[in-house]
């Protein structure tokens, strides 16, 4: 139980996909113009992540090493499509406003990264908990970004007017440059906190295996 809790917290905070490992960034800024979109994207990604981790962990002994990548891709793409179709059917408004970022979940490095690094080697329960932890870790960051952007950029939260009518919305925050700015500030705060918590200890350099070359110049992924 304690182990599972550790796995959960790992994704939620310690190795938070967005702030710490810095993967899956694309959707995090694009959809966080409103809190509703942020929550929608978070839940969508968590669903695909948990289901993919579950299936791959279940079948991990039936996946030949040499063709694991194509199989991972097929599994992830299948769950992304399922999520896409369900969103279109039951949450058409959310689905419309997130547009291309829903199908792009398939190449979200969080999923590929976790499937490859975790669930292809770990038991089912751990994998599901890891998926939940990482998914929620992603979701809370999206909500944090979206709250700032929607509240200050539009004066509303979840579509309800919060700021007094005399407040002039800072439209800049909803626009693309504002997305980068809010993310930079949140990340600076998170890094600062981590530095203080880990004072003295040098934090483990976390290397994402999705978008950068290895030290020796060869690519990580096959």
């Amino acid at each position, binding site marked *: 139980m304690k182990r599972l809790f550790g796995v959960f917290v790992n994704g939620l905070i310690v190795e938070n996909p967005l702030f710490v490992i810095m993967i899956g*960034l694309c959707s995090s800024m694009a959809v966080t113009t409103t809190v509703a979109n942020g929550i929608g994207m978070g839940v969508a990604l968590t669903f695909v992540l948990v289901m993919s981790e579950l299936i791959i962990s279940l079948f991990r002994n039936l996946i030949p090493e040499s063709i694991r990548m194509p199989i991972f*891709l097929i599994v992830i*793409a299948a769950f*992304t499509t399922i999520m896409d179709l369900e969103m279109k059917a039951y949450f058409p408004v959310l689905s419309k406003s997130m547009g291309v970022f829903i199908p792009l979940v398939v190449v979200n490095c969080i999923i*590929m990264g976790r499937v490859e690094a975790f669930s292809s080697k770990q038991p089912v329960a751990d994998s599901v908990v890891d998926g939940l932890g990482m998914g929620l870790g992603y979701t809370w960051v999206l909500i944090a970004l979206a709250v700032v952007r929607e509240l200050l950029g539009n004066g509303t939260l979840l579509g309800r007017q919060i700021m007094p009518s005399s407040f002039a919305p800072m439209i800049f925050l909803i626009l693309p440059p504002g997305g980068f700015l809010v993310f930079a500030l949140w990340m600076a705060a998170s890094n600062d906190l981590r530095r203080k918590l880990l004072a003295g200890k040098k934090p483990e350099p976390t290397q994402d295996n999705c978008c950068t070359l290895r030290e020796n110049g060869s690519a990580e992924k096959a």
Partner: protein
Amino acid sequence: MSDLIKIFVAAFLINNIILMRFIALCSYIGMTSDVGQSVGMGLAVTFVTVMASAVTWPIYYWILKPNGLEFLEILVFIVVIAALVQLVEFYLKKSVPTLYHAMGIYLPLITTNCAILAVTFDQITNNYNFVQSIVFSVAVSLGYLLAMLLLAGVRQRLKNSPIPAFMMDTPILFLTTSLIAVAFMGFAGLIK
């Protein structure tokens, strides 16, 4: 002709895939610590994006759509792109070793590059015909290359600049990107 120019300018500058649409940010942060690397990655992405666009368009309109299989779009596109990247890698390694050394090492990173997949989905959503799709894919990937190069250039200077401690590392990169994006917003008036 003018609609092609319009598509090009819009996709290259106005709706720049990284700075305005936040797509392919992973590689934008991960691959810009060195100017040479950013150009290599940018060229590899350009190459594969255009090929992917040229391959997925006929697949969608000649195979998926006539058979009512549009729902397989995501699955088919990602598998086709993955296979394509593999083929390109094999081919380059065997036939054009010089090119392979220049951009081959980036190819494995490209399968999961959002930009390529985004282009293939967008050309379908925007109802582009084949020629428009190709122009669109060239413009998007050149926009990608431009953004990569811009950040790589700034990063060279950041290395020797005094940066406030709490902004060290990645936050300053996003702050820089925010400023570059402000500049890019100015392109919005380029087409009517």
